[in-house]
């Protein structure tokens, strides 16, 4: 075990919010370490292989981070924390203790997956999952693609598939049309978002976009061959190569929960300066409520200023106003894209619930708690530690699972236990 150089601030997560936080604090003279799991900074929304793929706002923010001399650790992740001031970090396989005065969590969000027959077939993935794989080098040109999900993420992903030359057959939104209209009404003041939505829709203009529509099942052999979709009450069968099916995003809060931060309605609870319930720990961006990249950058800016003690700068009226708009947007999104009850009944008793431990839906009793499901049926006990089925259990059975256990995210237990001096198993 060794101890890395102590920092004034560690920022966990290199997406828009984390980048803004790191830049703002470093520009004010702090020694900042930015820990990011990705190969390149930018998070999921700015995932890229070459920097020319990045939008101008991303380029500018990355320039700020470089100019402000933020120390960047890519392909690194936080495994554990002995306290909010000492993290256990896996730096590309070398596990070290990382002391820090303060901490900003910018851990983002992940997709909400729900089980349906055939969801374990290769070729079935998330909506953002398909986008991430595409941005990481998967060629979709000439492939038949169906997207079935919920919320604003469908639009950029559909546009990206169409622009990349995929044969996009259908985009299914589970929410009803009225919900979309209600949601659009809440963002009418934000011309930029409406322009984005229109340009995305234009990009996949030849593909039907259907509300009140969702995947019923996927069929295939060694991989996906066909998908059956309920389109406004009528079943449609589509032959396809890729199905992107996930139902919105949920805040990624495992590190926050490990640190003991309050989590309310699945999001890390923060005050107007982005402070969590734990002293010295701030949280910004999607992990405090899913709202998009621009409001996330505002929150990052606020926290990055606040950690330096420059509270007047953190409370600049322009930031306060933009932060409020972002939280309003987050609330509207959660309200209008609520999961419809039909999606809870897609899985049959044979459909796997926990993909890691191969536990079918029929093997669990809905009257159990999440803890009982772990003890009796190993639900959420596998490699992903419930990252996928935890959300599904919440939607299907109302199970709340607020425990977070180290090492976060995965194996490499040997190095982790060496680093913190615990006996390995």
């Amino acid at each position, binding site marked *: 075990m060794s101890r890395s150089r102590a920092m004034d601030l560690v920022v966990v997560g290199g997406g828009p919010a984390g980048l803004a936080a790191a830049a703002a604090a470093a520009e004010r003279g702090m020694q900042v370490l930015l820990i990011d799991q990705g190969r390149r900074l930018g998070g999921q929304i700015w995932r890229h292989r070459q920097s020319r793929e990045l939008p101008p706002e991303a380029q500018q923010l990355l320039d700020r981070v470089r100019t402000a001399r933020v120390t960047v650790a890519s392909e690194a992740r936080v495994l554990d924390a002995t306290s909010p001031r000492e993290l256990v970090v896996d730096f590309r396989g070398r596990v070290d203790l990382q002391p820090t005065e303060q901490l900003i969590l910018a851990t983002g969000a992940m997709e909400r997956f729900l089980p349906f027959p055939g969801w*374990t077939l290769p070729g079935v993935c*998330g909506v*953002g*999952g398909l986008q991430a*794989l595409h941005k*990481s*080098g998967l060629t979709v040109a000439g492939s038949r693609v169906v997207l079935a999900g919920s919320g604003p993420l469908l639009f950029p992903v559909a546009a990206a598939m169409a622009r990349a030359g995929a044969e996009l057959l259908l985009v299914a939104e589970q929410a009803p049309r009225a919900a979309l209209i209600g949601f659009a009404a809440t963002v009418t003041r934000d011309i930029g978002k409406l322009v984005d939505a229109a340009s995305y829709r234009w990009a996949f203009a030849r593909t039907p976009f259907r509300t009140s529509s969702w995947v019923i099942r996927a069929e295939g052999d060694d991989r996906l061959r066909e998908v059956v979709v309920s389109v406004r009450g009528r079943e449609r069968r589509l032959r396809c190569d890729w199905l992107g099916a996930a139902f919105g995003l949920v805040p990624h809060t495992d590190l926050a929960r490990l640190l003991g931060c309050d989590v309310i309605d699945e999001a890390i609870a923060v005050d107007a300066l982005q402070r969590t319930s734990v002293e010295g720990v701030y949280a910004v961006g999607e992990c405090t409520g899913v709202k998009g990249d621009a409001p996330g950058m505002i929150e990052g800016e606020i926290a990055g200023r606040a950690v330096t003690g420059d509270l007047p700068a953190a409370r600049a009226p322009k930031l306060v106003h933009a932060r409020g708009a972002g939280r309003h947007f987050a609330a509207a999104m959660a309200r209008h894209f609520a999961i419809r009850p039909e999606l809870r009944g897609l899985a049959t008793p044979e459909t796997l619930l926990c993909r890691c431990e191969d536990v079918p839906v029929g093997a669990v009793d809905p009257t159990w708690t999440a803890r009982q499901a772990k003890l009796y049926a190993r639900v959420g006990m596998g490699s*992903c530690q419930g990252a996928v089925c935890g959300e599904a259990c919440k939607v299907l059975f109302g199970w709340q699972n607020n425990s977070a256990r180290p090492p976060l995210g995965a194996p490499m237990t040997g190095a982790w236990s060496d680093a913190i001096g615990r006996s390995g198993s």
Partner: protein
Amino acid sequence: MTDDVTITVNGVPRRVPADGTLAAVLLGLGVTAFRRDLGGAPRAPICGMGTCHECRVRVDGIDEVRSCLVSVRDGMQVETAG
């Protein structure tokens, strides 16, 4: 365009683009069984960002490497479940 590298997948050398993640490259090569479940059914990545753990393969002798989190490297030895 980017340079290609050579990786070995289940003993077969393959030329692949150098700038992709291993998961994306394997999907591009038509790999469906990154791993297999207890019943022998093939599994492939669903999240593409390190969360789902479905993309685990053996890389250079190390088991359980999440292929969506690593870049391809010239000479990389990869073993999937078929």
